[in-house]
């Protein structure tokens, strides 16, 4: 894992000394809303005094009703630490209190209360090296996308040798092609980078001519995609709780060190993946 040759930009704020400021609620402004899938939008936010984040971290978003009732949820950051603006990709849940407001109501110029960045455990930066194995289910792709975006930015100036020192593989499970977030960007990133492999599995419906996986992620699929345990890949698994727990258990059965398998459960879903 020699990463000393990598050119990495220090995420803003990561060198804050011991008198670290408390995480405060901030009023962010929506600068853009991007449609990712029929059910998901990316909110691009301008956050005043944003201290910087690490790829994989999340924010808490708080909505306040007219009568003072508040609802609060966590959303992963999709943007790389190098981006000036913060991007959150939110999947609409029909019975949700918060997500329909974020995906259907908010427009550019609207304000939003958030606090963060939160959680330094489920985080990766290029300086930590690789190999990097990312496993996503449904909207669990969001924090992993921040890692891939960060990796691409950090390695852009690195030599080919350094780039190959941090190979990355993404295994991403979605119900159907239309539900896949960041399709074009993922294709472009993989095309531009020999050291990045992206594998999709579509669990409910596949487009005609589909040659990829078409089943839930299982142990055999992981054995095919993951590096051998001896390579000691750093693994990040994110998605609905059942998927995350099945993947983490299968990886440990395959011989991966549990300490290298980090998980982020999004809670059970109706089966977003």
């Amino acid at each position, binding site marked *: 894992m020699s990463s000393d040759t990598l050119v990495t930009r220090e*995420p803003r*704020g*990561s*060198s*804050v*000394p*011991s008198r*670290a*400021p*408390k*995480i405060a609620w901030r009023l962010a402004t929506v600068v853009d809303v991007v449609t990712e899938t029929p059910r998901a939008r990316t909110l691009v936010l301008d956050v005043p005094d944003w*201290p910087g984040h*690490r790829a994989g*971290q*999340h924010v*808490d978003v708080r*909505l*306040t*009703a*007219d*009568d003072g*009732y508040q*609802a*609060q*949820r*966590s*959303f*992963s950051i999709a943007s790389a630490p190098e981006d000036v603006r913060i991007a959150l990709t*939110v*999947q609409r*849940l029909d*019975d*949700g*209190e*918060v*997500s329909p*407001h974020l995906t259907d109501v908010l427009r550019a110029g609207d304000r939003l209360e958030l*606090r*963060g*960045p*939160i*959680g*330094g*455990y*489920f*985080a990766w930066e290029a300086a*930590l090296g690789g190999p990097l194995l990312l496993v996503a289910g*449904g*909207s669990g792709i*969001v924090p992993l996308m921040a890692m891939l975006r960060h990796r691409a930015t950090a390695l852009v100036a690195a030599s080919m040798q350094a780039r190959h020192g941090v190979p990355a593989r993404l295994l991403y499970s979605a119900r159907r092609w239309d539900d896949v977030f960041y399709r074009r960007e993922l294709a472009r990133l993989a095309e531009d980078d020999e050291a990045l492999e992206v594998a999709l599995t579509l669990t409910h419906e596949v487009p005609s001519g589909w040659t990829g996986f078409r089943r839930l992620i299982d142990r055999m699929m992981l054995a095919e995609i993951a590096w051998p345990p001896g390579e000691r890949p750093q693994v990040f698994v994110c998605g*609905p*709780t059942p998927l995350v727990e099945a993947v983490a258990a299968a990886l440990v059965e395959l011989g991966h060190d549990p300490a290298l398998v*980090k*998980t982020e*459960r*999004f*809670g*059970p*879903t*109706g089966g977003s993946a």
Partner: protein
Amino acid sequence: MKGDIRKTADERGDERVGEALRLDGNAAAGLLSEIFVPDLTAAPVTCAYCGAIRALGALLVYAHGMGPVIRCPECGAVVLRVARIRNQLWLDPTGTRLVVMPEAAAPSGHQTHK
């Protein structure tokens, strides 16, 4: 802000802190930031019952109405409870033997253990 955000159905998927869901220690990090200045998610926590040492982010969070119940993934014991009761935050650390806080931990939690 619209007045119609309140709904009773439990929220799932990307809205991660719902009702009685099993999540990771990370899910409690926002609430814990109201109590502790450094990010605790990468801090090794020793379970008082079985002695297992895990980063808080690797513990299991059960999200209940008043606040998260944080359990040891090895023995299932309650390691930490946080509850919002009226206008107070209650922290019950009975199940925690030791928390090792990295020095100079920023809220964004940049720390490595080597």
